[in-house]
Structures are given as structure tokens and as C-alpha cells.
């Protein structure tokens, strides 16, 4: 991995409500301009890891109690979420979380406010988003709550892009979407990665799709990294299957 990674987690532990240990010492890295996948079954700790990075975990009575999180080499373990968005790290939440009672365009605009852009700058950024998501332009005046699931996912990603981030944490982009829409969304993610240089850390249950677009992956199990490797290594490994289907745990497979 050349240069400093844009994101680095060093053995972080996350506790909810001061008792529930959800993440038990995860270390990972996202290289500059990379797409890294965080895989694992439901409840493995993927979302918690992302929220720990974006500091949103604190809004849900969680806390990073051990370890360090570095963004571009700076310690952001206890940073304020607004500060992080300002410095170029934005999370797209699981389940999309569009502002349902705001129009598509209003949703997108709110994402840009953190930069305190001029009026011209804001509308230029808006045009850029519409360039990547032409579908949103035709629906710009609809209430986001009444758009389709795929469109809402595009709104959520577009809204995050308005902050001109260098790293996007993308949580379960495929959730509840038809396969061809999932494909479309991942194509756009790859496009943004190549043309805008945005790095991605994406949490996915759908490992097949995620590994087709990511270059590197981590498999999480019960709050620890069970295995990691390049996308092609992971795609062919038994470990991944085991982690989803149960039976032997990855740890026991690796030991064997």
C-alpha cells in the first residue's frame, strides 16, 4: 500500500450503553483512492464499525473505548461528526435515511451546507450530482419519501457527495434493492472512485457484488476481523462462506 492510508483503524473497541461490547478490536486500512469492502453477516459489527469512524456511534449511546482511528494520519477517534463531514469524511447510513418530507433537490442541497458554499458553488455541485445520477434530475421536485428505493439510495449517496468528501462510508447500499439497481449503484460508485478520486469503505452483506467492485476486503465476525485479503482471494475462499452460513467459524478454518 503506497503512502499513508486515508483511513486506518487500530484495534478499536466499541461499547454501547456502557455494557454491550459490539466491536472487539478491529484493525483495518483504506488506501488513498481505494474501495474496501467490509463483509460479514447481520450483527457482525459492520455498521458499528462505520459509525465508530464517523462518530455517529455517540449519537446512539455508543463509545469507542479502545484503539485509535486515523483519517489522513490525524487522530479522529473522538472528533465531532460535523467536523468530520467538513474535513471530507461522510457516512451514507444503512437504510438510506433520506429526508422524506424534503424534495430530492432539497435533500441534495442540505448535504452541501457543511462547506458553506456560495450560491453558485452550490448549484454547480448540484449539476455535478445530476450528471452522475440523471434519474434524480427528473425527480428533483418530488418528495424524497415518495421516490423508489433505488432513487433514495442515489439521493443518499448524492447528498453525501455534495460535501465533496474524500472518503465515503457506505453502509449496505444494496439493501432491499433489485439486482440491476444494485449493479447500477455499484457502477456509479466505481465511476466516482475513478473520476473523482473518492475512496470508499463499504459494508455489505452481499459479498459477491461487493467483491466484484472492491479491491480489498475484511470479513468481520462477532466484532473481530476474522479474515482479510484481496477481493479475488476472498471471493474464492471457504472462509467467506463459513462466515455467512455458520457451521465452522472462520477462526477454526484458518487454524486448521
Amino acid at each position: 500500500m503506497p503512502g499513508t492510508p486515508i483511513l486506518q483503524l487500530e484495534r478499536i473497541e466499541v461499547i454501547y450503553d456502557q455494557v454491550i461490547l459490539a466491536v472487539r478490536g478491529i484493525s483495518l486500512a483504506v488506501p488513498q483512492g481505494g474501495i474496501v469492502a467490509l463483509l460479514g453477516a447481520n450483527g457482525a459489527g459492520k455498521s458499528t464499525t462505520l459509525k465508530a469512524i464517523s462518530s455517529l456511534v455517540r449519537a446512539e449511546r455508543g463509545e469507542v473505548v479502545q484503539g485509535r482511528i486515523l483519517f489522513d494520519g490525524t487522530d479522529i477517534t473522538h472528533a465531532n461528526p460535523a467536523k468530520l463531514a467538513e474535513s471530507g469524511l461522510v457516512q451514507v447510513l444503512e437504510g438510506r435515511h433520506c429526508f422524506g418530507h424534503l424534495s430530492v433537490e432539497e435533500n441534495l442541497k442540505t448535504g452541501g451546507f457543511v462547506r458553506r458554499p456560495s450560491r453558485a458553488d452550490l448549484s454547480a455541485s448540484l449539476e455535478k450530482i445530476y450528471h452522475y445520477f440523471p434519474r434524480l434530475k427528473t425527480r428533483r421536485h418530488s418528495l424524497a419519501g415518495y421516490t423508489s428505493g433505488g432513487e433514495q439510495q442515489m439521493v443518499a449517496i448524492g447528498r453525501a457527495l455534495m460535501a465533496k468528501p474524500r472518503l465515503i462510508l457506505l453502509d449496505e447500499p444494496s439493501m432491499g434493492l433489485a439486482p440491476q439497481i444494485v449493479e447500477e449503484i455499484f457502477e456509479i460508485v466505481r465511476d466516482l472512485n475513478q473520476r473523482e478520486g473518492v475512496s470508499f469503505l463499504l459494508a455489505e452483506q452481499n459479498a459477491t457484488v461487493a467483491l466484484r467492485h472492491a479491491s480489498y476486503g475484511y470479513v468481520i465476525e462477532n466484532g473481530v476481523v476474522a479474515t482479510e485479503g484481496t477481493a479475488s482471494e476472498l471471493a474464492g475462499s471457504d472462509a467467506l462462506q463459513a462466515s455467512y452460513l455458520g457451521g465452522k467459524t472462520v477462526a477454526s478454518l484458518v487454524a486448521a
Partner: protein
Amino acid sequence: MGFFLEVLAGGLLAGVMYSLVAIGFVLIYKASGVFNFAQGAMVLFAALTFVSLLERGVPFWLSFVITLLAMVALALLIERAVLRPLVNRPPITLFMATLGLSYVIEGAAQALWGAQVHGLDLGIKDEPFEFAGLLLSQFDLFAAATAAVLVTTLSLLFSKTRIGLSLRAVADDPLAALAIGIRLQRIWAVVWAVAGFVGLVAGLLWGARLGVQFSLSLIVLKALPVLIIGGFTSIGGAIVGGLIIGASEKLAEVYIGPLIGGGIENWFPYVLALLFLLVRPAGLFGERAIERV
């Protein structure tokens, strides 16, 4: 017929006065999901501060500005001392906190300015005049015009400005708002300050009508049926709810009252609100969750 219209018009105009109080609730409820029981205390605080300044010889507009600044300071203080430590607590906890807050504000207002009753003269005569064959109160018309200006200003604020858009975003989904870098604390402080301003306007009008006194804080109780009917999340709903309450309580008093011994104006709105709760729990204009099927 003329009599009926007169009662109706009088009731509608009186209802606007309830709406003015209800709007303060809607603002805070929308942005933070808190039912702010202290809104009545804020109305009292504003009116008492204003009238006390006026009585000490401060000019009208200067008193208005100083009171407004006091309300903003109060909002910042509440955000800092009450809301921030209680962030992410269940709504009932926050409600209890505002209940306590109302006592603190009432107490502080009276400790600062004394507990005697003050008269407040805004220079608008509270006497009827004839309009299109109906006797209407000049004061009520003034209150209605004020409410109209207030609502227009607020809706422009919400739809045209960045702070307004952020505010609606926070109301919709606080976690997502946080994720895109909207500062919740700042939004809360703004909302409480705007609610303080609305409280000031309501306090002046109600104070001019009833005198500025402790019982002013009890108008929260009158706002409750307005909110239940109009919905807790809609400013338009607060207006319509106020109109319905105002008109129906006056009509009920005049037409149903004599049949059962009168004096029903005081409890009729609550019965009406109960009926609405059975039929339309979210109120007429309350936002129901958007669900796609």
C-alpha cells in the same frame, strides 16, 4: 343569521390568539420531538420582561429588542444546560425536563420583575367596530394580521433559507442530518430562539388582553387542544386548529350553552380534542410517517 356570523367571526379571530401560542410548540416539536411544556412560561417571561422595561421608561421598540435578545439568551442557555446533556434520551425525559424548566423560568421571571399584575397597552383599542354589517374587535383583527405576518415569515424561513432547510432536515431525520454535518445543537438553539420570539409576540397580545400576570403561563393548556386538532408538526395546522377551537367554543357557548346551563366555553375545546383523538390521532395536518407499500 347576522348574529351567527358575528359569533363565528368573533370566534375565528379569538382562535388566532390560541394559534399564536400553539405555533411556538410546533416549532420545537418539529425540530426536536420535544413537547415543550415551558412554552407558556416563555410567553410569561417575555411579556413580563417587556412590560417591566416599558414601565421603567424604556421606549417601546427598544424594550422589544431587549426582550428579544433576552429570549435568544434564554434559548442558548436552555440548549446548553438542558437539551445538550439530555441528548438521545427518551421523549418523556425531555418532556419532564421542560416541565421543570417551566417552573424555573416562571420563578426567575417573578424573582426578577416581581409578581404583581401589570397592565399592558399596545395602543390598539379593544373595542368593537362595524365591518360589513358585523361587529368585530379591532384588537382581534390586529392579532390576526400579526399572526399572518408571522406565519408568512416563518414559512419563508423554512423554505428559502439554508438554516430553515437544515431545520426541516433535522426534524425529519436527526441521525442523517448529523451524518452530513448539520450541527444539531446550533439548530436547536435557533429553534428555541425562534420559539422565544413567537412567545414574545403571543405574550404581548395576550398580555394586552388579560394583563401581564402569572396566569399567562397557563395558556399552554389552551394550546393543547389546538395542537391535537391541528397536528403537532404543522404550523398551518396550528392556525387551522386555533380557528376551529375559537369558532367552536364560541358557537357552543352561544347555542349549546343555554341548554345545559352555560359556561361550557372553558371545557368544550378539550371535548372536541378528545373526539379528534379518536378519529384522527395525528391531527388534521400532522405529518404521518411516509410509508411506501
